[in-house]
């Protein structure tokens, strides 16, 4: 499976590995003798240098001990990165199996090498390193990239499912395994109830997002998406909390000594730990959002602030024995909204990429460590325990899914279908989290730790490989069964039209939640929080330059990509239409249908597609760009004709245009004149280099030739655009509001709106695609506003 992907870079890797081996071989003697802590090695090195008399100055020495730990860690990470490159070079692989598979394989490979050379691996994984350094980035990343709106809309369902699901799984698996352990034939009599429960809790830590990429191709509905994210997000936190509580129990009492009081205390503690963590996270989120308000002059430290505050929230929560994971998650979710608007564009990109990078490094290390421990001597294989663990994991997940969803479906307006539930059940893939928790079990309390580790590894391997690889086909199978393949072209076309229509009307209505609470929060947020946390009065010059830069960039892109070449229908096309219709063969129809399906625009999706391992540009951006370019061209054409609006007088014969409208209703007379005024001002704005589209397009259609002489700077295009639509209705007080936009150079007509106003209509567009679209649209929209809150839109790119 991954072998094909590994082949391209195998030679490199083998070289690397050979180099490592040599070093290992050379220094393995000294390795075994010294304790592998860098400090002591360092001491040894210096001590050796000073105490031994040097016989001669050695021209070339090899000092591997000094660099061993960072060197090996770096090599592991590099190896995993190379593997990922190979993995993604092959188009088909990412769809076949989740990336976790690849990482596990790499880990196993490294483990094999280390085992083979009998090399002592560096102590990457111990309890403090894991909980303090490896875990926070992973959780931070998943919290940060969580799409907030759908999350909060479905918060009830998600909490119900993730929280109760984790608890149900943990206790279910633990108790059933305990029952199994009672059977004397299996030789598991010394595993007591607490240990089993603990094992259950660490087994319940699922990592479903890993498989998300695999079945994203099939149009999984957004609700399902959200449930899976939500579960992934909260699941880790809940498992760890449960784990810690149970460990505390194990330390405190003998099993027989546990009283109901303790159990109640445990439950209370569970709740306090969870809620307390969230509380601290939110506080730190707000603090960091507030601080980013003031960092405009030193934008280089903005990513630092974001990361440090999240980390601090984690540490503070851990100090108080609250759940650091939930704290950091809450911090990320809270601060994301405000930070995105405050920080500069580059900081925003940096934050995103750095977060991905850190989390990917952590996860890689954990998986490699998993691979290392797979191939080793510390296993204990007990058929009964392992098989039953596997079986119970599946059974309990199925039970929790179907029972919990059955209950929550009663309260949802859009119940989850059985198919959805099957997908959720099947995506219960275990990942790095379970392994870490198993590995970090204290040996003193768990004499049979090796058994647990082995069982965990088996479950992980099974779920990741077998479930991960088959989930794609399963989902496609379930999907295909539902859709009727034999749709006629009509059905497809009109169905898509209706989808777009519905999406459009939904957007007109704005996004609603079912909860008053959310609307109230929005109002509160708007009135108070934003004023405190968001920067005011962005300097105009930066805005201007940003706008300019964007226009230039877009113009360059368009010119380079050779703009929409065949965009206009020529009138001759009309004449070619014949009266008789050809009878088409079935293959033609098929191919026609395929062409249509492939090329039709997708309907706007509210939830971003989330890829755990990569930041991919949204394909919907390309689509949005095309649509906007087309509208702009439409608009320019209509401008050219002297009528400002697509809704102006008909230009003449009924040409087929790619206007959304042919001209229909007559313009009110007043507007015509004003339009003429504005086009006069073409030359007045010399700030911007004019942007021409005609020069590089391959096809010199009539329209384009006509456009060449008339170079309309984009600004004045907008200026011309705006007045007919809303210039006149504005009263003087409105213009005062335009803090951001009022520039002396430009005409007094309003171009930009103040941030507050724009946020009314902007508040719903938190997703990237529409935001990007609105960014472009702010440049291109024929009659709309320009620059709807530039800075926030830009950040979302």
């Amino acid at each position, binding site marked *: 499976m991954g072998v094909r992907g590994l082949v391209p870079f195998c030679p490199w890797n083998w070289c690397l590995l050979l180099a490592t081996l040599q070093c290992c071989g050379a220094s393995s003697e000294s390795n075994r003798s010294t304790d592998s802590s860098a400090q002591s090695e360092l001491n040894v090195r210096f001590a050796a240098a000073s105490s031994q008399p040097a016989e001669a100055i050695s021209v070339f020495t090899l000092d591997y001990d000094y660099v061993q730990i960072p060197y090996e860690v770096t090599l592991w990470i590099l190896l995993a990165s190379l593997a990922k490159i190979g993995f993604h070079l092959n188009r088909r692989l990412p769809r076949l199996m989740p990336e976790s598979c690849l990482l596990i394989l790499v880990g196993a490979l490294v483990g094999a090498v280390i085992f083979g050379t009998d090399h002592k691996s560096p102590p990457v994984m111990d309890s403090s390193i894991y909980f303090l350094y490896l875990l926070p980035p992973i959780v931070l990343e998943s919290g940060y990239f969580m799409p907030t709106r759908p999350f909060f809309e479905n918060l009830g369902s998600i909490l119900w499912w993730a929280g109760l699901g984790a608890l149900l799984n943990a206790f279910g698996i633990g108790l059933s395994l305990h029952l199994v352990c009672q059977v004397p034939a299996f030789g598991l009599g010394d595993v007591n109830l607490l240990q089993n429960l603990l094992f259950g809790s660490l087994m319940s830590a699922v990592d479903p997002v890993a498989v998300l990429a695999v079945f994203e191709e099939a149009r999984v509905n957004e609700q399902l998406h959200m449930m899976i994210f939500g579960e992934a997000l909260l699941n880790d936190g809940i498992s760890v909390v449960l784990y810690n509580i149970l460990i505390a129990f194990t330390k405190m009492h003998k099993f027989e000594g546990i009283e109901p009081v303790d159990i109640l205390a445990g439950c209370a503690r569970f709740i306090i730990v969870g809620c307390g963590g969230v509380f601290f996270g939110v506080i730190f989120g707000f603090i960091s959002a507030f601080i980013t308000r003031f960092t405009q002059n030193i934008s280089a430290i903005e990513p630092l602030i974001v990361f440090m505050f999240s980390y601090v929230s984690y540490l503070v929560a851990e100090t108080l024995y609250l759940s650091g994971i939930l704290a950091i998650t809450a911090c990320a979710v809270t601060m994301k909204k405000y930070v995105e608007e405050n920080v500069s564009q580059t900081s925003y990109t940096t934050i995103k990429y750095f977060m991905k990078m850190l989390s990917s490094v952590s996860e890689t290390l954990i998986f490699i460590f998993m691979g290392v421990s797979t191939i080793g001597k510390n296993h204990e294989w007990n058929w009964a325990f392992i098989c039953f663990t596997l079986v119970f994991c599946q059974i309990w997940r199925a039970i929790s899914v179907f029972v919990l969803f059955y209950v929550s479906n009663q309260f949802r*307006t859009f119940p989850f279908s059985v198919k959805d539930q099957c997908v959720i059940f099947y995506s219960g893939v275990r990942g790095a989290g379970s392994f870490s928790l198993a590995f970090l079990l204290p040996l003193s309390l768990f004499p049979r730790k090796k058994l647990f580790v082995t069982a965990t590894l088996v479950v992980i391997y099974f779920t990741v490989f077998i479930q991960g690889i088959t989930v794609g086909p399963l989902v496609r199978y379930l999907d295909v069964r539902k859709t009727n393949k034999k749709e*006629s*072209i*009509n*059905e497809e*076309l*009109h*169905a898509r*039209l*209706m*989808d777009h*229509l*519905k*999406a*459009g*009307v*939904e*957007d*007109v*209505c*704005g996004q609603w939640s079912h909860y008053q609470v959310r609307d109230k929060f929005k109002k509160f947020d708007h009135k108070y929080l934003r004023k405190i946390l968001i920067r005011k009065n962005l300097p105009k010059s930066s805005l201007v330059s940003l706008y300019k830069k964007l226009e230039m960039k877009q113009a360059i892109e368009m010119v380079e990509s050779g703009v929409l070449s*065949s*965009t206009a229908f020529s009138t001759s096309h*009309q004449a070619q239409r014949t009266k008789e*219709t050809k009878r*088409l063969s079935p293959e033609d*129809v098929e191919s026609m249908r395929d062409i*249509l399906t492939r*090329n*039709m*625009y997708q309907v*706007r999706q509210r939830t971003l597609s989330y890829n755990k391992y990569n930041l991919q540009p949204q394909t919907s951006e390309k*689509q*949005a760009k095309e*649509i*906007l370019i087309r509208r702009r061209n439409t608009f320019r054409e209509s401008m050219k004709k002297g009528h400002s609006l*697509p*809704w102006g007088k008909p230009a003449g014969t009924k040409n087929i245009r790619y206007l*959304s*409208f*042919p001209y229909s209703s007559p313009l009110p007379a007043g507007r015509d004149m004003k339009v003429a005024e504005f086009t006069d001002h073409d030359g007045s704005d010399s700030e911007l280099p004019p942007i021409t589209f005609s020069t590089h397009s391959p096809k010199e259609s009539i329209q384009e030739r006509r456009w060449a002489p008339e170079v309309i700077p984009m600004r004045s295009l907008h200026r011309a655009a705006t007045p007919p*639509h*809303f210039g006149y209705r*504005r009263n003087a007080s409105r213009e005062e509001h335009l803090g951001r936009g009022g520039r002396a150079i430009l005409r007094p007509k309003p171009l930009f709106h103040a941030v507050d*106003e724009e946020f*009314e*209509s*902007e508040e*719903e567009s938190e997703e990237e695609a*529409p*935001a990007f*679209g609105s960014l*472009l*649209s702010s440049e*291109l*929209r*024929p009659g*709309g*506003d320009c620059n*709807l809150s530039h800075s926030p839109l830009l950040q979302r790119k």
Partner: protein
Amino acid sequence: MGSRASTLLRDEELEEIKKETGSASGFLLHELGEDNYQNSLSHPSTREVSHSQITRLYSRFTSLDKGENGTLSREDFQRIPELAINPLGDRIINAFFPEGEDQVNFRGFMRTLAHFRPIEDNEKSKDVNGPEPLNSRSNKLHFAFRLYDLDKDDKISRDELLQVLRMMVGVNISDEQLGSIADRTIQEADQDGDSAISFTEFVKVLEKVDVEQKMSIRFLH
């Protein structure tokens, strides 16, 4: 109350209605007139959106209405960013405006939105005598039909179809391909041989499509 008024409702009037009746029913009473109102009450499918939904939609309406004069113009709609990148954005906006008008008031806004109310199961058994509700399948299909048929001749001509196709499809399809797709579409649907799709043909061709689900927005409930 009188018969159904077709004038644009003033902002103050609307508030007055709401104030004096404090409920959706008052709004509807004004909208439909006494007789129709009584009729519609007996007939669950015309009972329109609930009061809370009307309030929310009204606040949405006011938030879109930058000019604060109780009506929306086209640029108010264009300010919605998602509509700008919707391939059919302009046509959808146009669907809100009555014939030849450039302003839409709240009633008009609600009328258009009423087409998208979900059809409930208990409404399926319709009372034949009552007025057909706006969110019936036939009316929904008519709404979609009107997106194609701009010149309102009750036919989708090849040109109109081509226009919409071009809007909905990426730049990778050539004009010839698009033309043949349009031809094929008409061919499939056309039954009376006029090389255009009439409304009845449109309905027939979509009989297997779940229009009620595709053109229903859940919060208009």
